[in-house]
């Protein structure tokens, strides 16, 4: 397998841009998913002397596009002015949809099917659909057949309170339909398995906020482009950051998934947010032809499956074969991005690679993988502080990892996510 891969063409990341990630607080935010992807995409396109119509394709990851956004990839491509001739599609692998889009772009370029691809991820979780339940849908079907006043009056009489109970799409989406666990409950399972206590996860959450605060102050987040709504408001930073977070305030929060006795709280979980991240991927020929800059190179990627109830460990299942194929030891990797779906889940991934039992029984290794240096992992914060718009995060972490390598003159990086339903995805990048 490694032999065939090496024959493939190199794939470069030219540049990328993302929107600030905006907290979803009850009411829908000002931007629908396609608005966000267009806002990020048009700023990215503005930076480069290429016409949007030269792309071979546009690929967008998104879990829950709005009702007016069927094949949101195509909607965004057209709105960006790519023109009718640029095909566009949408990919969905839950929390890794953005990385899936990059992976498809990467593979198409490596295979020689594409030269230049616009790819990324987007999610407007605040616009997640709220649905009518099936009783109500049935009632409406009957109602539309009522002709006389008498029939209508009778139908109205059959309405019950239960008819009006909506289905909250977001909550259903964050629940595994096979094992019947919410994502938070899978995190509780990992906490219990690796003995991660409340203090450890709160400390990790606090660190995430502190790191993001520093990154904002130092101007490390240059991939963010401000977005403007139609009411005169500008958003230029991730607004989920809580600079005043401390252990005491985190300790006050109640567990939300295993009520009463659990450990996972809103404070040590990823924030529900809206956002988009868009990247330009190119072959060597395209880089030369259009005189494009290069931010870095995508070397390889890996997907893996595991027990849905332990989906948070997905990253170790994806990263283990990836590193093996690249013959990278842990210390060869300068920086890591493991998406923070839950503080405890990132900590569990670190623990799993140190755990002899897990490494041999679950990963089929003879020895433990080793320990990721915490100073190289999620150095500028992650989902807990920045937020995790599910379709967008995969693209964000790859883009930001490249920016971290650029800033630090680093060479190699690995980005990975856990995926609801029991999967993991990982991508290896390199800078010359």
């Amino acid at each position, binding site marked *: 397998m490694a032999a065939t891969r090496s024959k493939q063409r190199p794939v470069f990341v030219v540049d990328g841009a993302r929107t600030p990630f905006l907290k979803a607080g009850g009411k829908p935010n000002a931007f629908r998913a396609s608005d966000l992807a*267009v806002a990020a995409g*048009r*700023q990215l396109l*503005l*930076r480069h*002397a290429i016409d949007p119509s030269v792309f071979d394709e546009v690929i967008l990851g998104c879990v829950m596009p709005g009702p007016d956004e069927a094949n949101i990839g195509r909607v965004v491509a057209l*709105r*960006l*002015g790519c023109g009718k001739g640029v095909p566009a599609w949408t990919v969905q692998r839950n929390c890794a949809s953005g990385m899936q889009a990059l992976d498809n772009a990467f593979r198409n370029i490596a295979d020689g099917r594409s030269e230049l691809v616009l790819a990324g991820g987007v999610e407007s979780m605040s616009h997640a659909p709220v649905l009518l339940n099936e009783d109500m849908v049935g009632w409406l079907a009957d109602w539309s057949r009522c002709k006389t006043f008498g029939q209508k009056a009778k139908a109205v009489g059959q309405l019950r309170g239960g008819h009006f109970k909506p289905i909250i799409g977001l909550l259903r989406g964050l629940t595994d339909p096979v094992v019947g666990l919410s994502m938070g409950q899978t995190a509780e399972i990992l906490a219990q398995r690796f003995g991660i206590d409340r203090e450890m996860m709160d400390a990790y959450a606090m660190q995430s906020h502190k790191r993001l605060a520093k990154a904002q102050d130092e101007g490390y987040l240059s991939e963010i482009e*401000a977005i*403007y*709504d*139609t*009411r*005169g*408001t*500008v958003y*230029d930073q991730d607004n989920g950051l809580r600079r005043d977070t401390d252990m005491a305030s985190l300790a006050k929060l109640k567990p939300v998934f295993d009520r009463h006795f659990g450990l996972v709280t809103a404070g040590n979980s990823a924030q529900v947010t809206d956002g988009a991240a868009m990247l330009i991927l190119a072959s060597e020929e395209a880089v030369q032809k259009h005189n494009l800059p290069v931010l870095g190179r995508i070397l390889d990627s890996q997907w893996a499956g595991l027990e849905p109830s332990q989906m948070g460990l997905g990253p170790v299942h994806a990263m283990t074969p990836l590193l093996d194929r690249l013959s990278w030891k842990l210390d060869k990797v300068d920086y890591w991005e493991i998406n923070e779906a839950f503080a405890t889940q990132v900590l569990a991934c670190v623990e799993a690679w140190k755990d002899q039992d897990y490494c041999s029984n679950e990963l089929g290794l003879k020895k433990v993988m080793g320990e990721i240096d915490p100073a190289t992992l999620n150095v500028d914060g992650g989902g807990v502080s920045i937020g995790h718009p599910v379709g967008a995060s995969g693209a964000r972490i790859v883009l930001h990892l490249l920016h971290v390598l650029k800033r630090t003159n680093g060479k190699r990086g690995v980005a990975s996510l856990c995926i609801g339903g029991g999967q993991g995805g990982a991508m290896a990048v390199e800078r010359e």
Partner: protein
Amino acid sequence: MAQQITEQPYKNWRLERDDHDIAWLYADKAEASANVLSADVLEELYEILSQLQRDRPQGLIILSAKRSGFILGADINEFTTLGGQADAEALIGRGQAVLDRLEALDMPTVALIQGFALGGGMELALACRYRIADEDSAKLGLPEVKLGIHPGFGGTVRLPPLIGAPAAMDMMLTGRMISSRAAAKMGLVDYAVPERRLKDAAKHLVLQSPVPKKAKGWQAWVNHDLLRPLMAMYLRKQVSGKARKDHYPAPYAMIDLWAEHMSDPRRMMREEAASVARLVIGDTAQNLVRVFFLQERMKALGNKRDLDVKHVHVIGGGVMGGDIAAWCALRGLTVTIQDRNHETLARVMKRAHSLYKKKLKLPRLVMGVMDRLIPDIHGHGVAKADVVIEAIFENIEAKQGLYKEVEPRMKPGAILATNTSSIPLEVLREVLAQPTRLVGLHFFNPVAKMQLVEIVRNDDTDAEVVKQAMAFCRHIDRLPLPVKSAPGFLVNRVLMPYLLEAVHLVEEGVPAWAVDKAALDFGMPMGPIELADTVGLDICQSVATILSQQLNVEVPQRLKQMVDSGKLGRKSGQGFYSYADGKKVKQEIDKEYVPPRDITDRMMFRFLNEAMACLREGIVEEADLLDGGVIFGTGFAPFRGGPMHYIQERGRDDLRRTLENLEHNHGGRFKPDRGWYDGND
């Protein structure tokens, strides 16, 4: 569909018969890109209708063979060569007779409308039994009132019974354009259908021949004898808020016509013809027709083909810059708007969005334009733009610094333009590697309403660039006017002395409302004092100061005092008037007050005198263009045909003597310009 049986050939029409025995009549005016109902077109139509009356097809469908739309209206050129009332009445009567014959055909008749159906074209459609409109392209209207007349081919007679008096009168009094969907909703057309179904729909109407549409309910009742006087009173009151009867008699004539004659259509036809004939030979209509041709002339100054433009970059997100950017995006261009401040850009997006919502209504269309308007804090757009427009604050160093940074990054051959209103191009361009490329694109506020753009150039400005700048104006549907780079250019220069004279009057104790009233009575769209408040007194002061350095203008003390004490006009809540939430607070008016006898002359003669000076100095190339520029840039009473036309009509020597009297009474600022004495032609 087989429509090949071509019958006898006409010059302006094409008649075909299909296999259902339906006659299809294509309007196709010879040697013209658009259909108008000129005398020869109407004559032929009369012949064709007579022939159809004999041939008796199943029905008649009238449509256009032109891509430009259905029929644009009467031939306005014919308005300028009318001999007198009788001549005009005969011409109109002939048109009425043709449409009467169309209405009297005893077969189903359908007007199939794509694109514009305006004026006489709309009236032709009204004389058909049915109307079908293309749901995307059709635009319908009776805009005669904008030319100082009202419909004359039976439109005032046929429209009220069809859609009811309230809608009919609104349509004719405002002259507004109606979209196809709105037309279907109000009953103006029978169906609005997609292009692919137009012909099927027309055939369906001919073959099924349903009962023709008519206004129902209260819409119809208002046409009743008992209700018309009441409604007419209400309408007159509405109209009086918009236009004065002595300036614009047409809307009043229209209301009278309807109120007095709606119950007798035969009589009403004759009265309609007489009324239009009276109006069309009057000064107002003749001057408005003149303005129409001035507008056509200015449009023709720019040729879209001289410039290929897709992307415009605007620097400076203030009201002007932001509105220019928003307008360009609305006209279909990709626009980047650059400013150093995020909040400023956010305000641009907000203003643009409310403009688009008003203009486009459909969310899908609004989204499309918003996607083309790109806030660009980093200024990346410079390198991609075909036109770069600088609209930052009026400061020489700031502008020069910006040009130095921008010029090397621009695409080769892109236009670099400034929206400056007061700094000479020759100063700004000093820092450029190619100084002759800089051109002024001077827009007016509010950009979405004011059609004029002054194209400011020096003698050595690259002629190609000037041509492209004028072409750019056509791409964004504005009227270009080339002007010399001299203080105030044309519009601000003629406005400023007039405005300052108004301030002098207030200084002398004349109440602001009386000053404004005098100007409104002359026909200005807004009083000069309110205009000064609206523009901002600080801006007035700075423009006046710049002008005073080179021209015969003194800046009244009053202006300086007010600016110093923070009274800046509308934006500060206090100027000559008080404002609450941007609206003028109503003030007491002393009905006993008698203003000075020469109040109007003092203001208007400074205006006219400065216009004369501009013409003599060659700020604008000729009198007609000056008139057009002043009308579309200042709103100068259009029914007076423009300042130079006004001078000519009133008699140059008479007016000069008035000016000499004013100089005698009020001093040197009224000294007649040399132009008043030059070559008495």
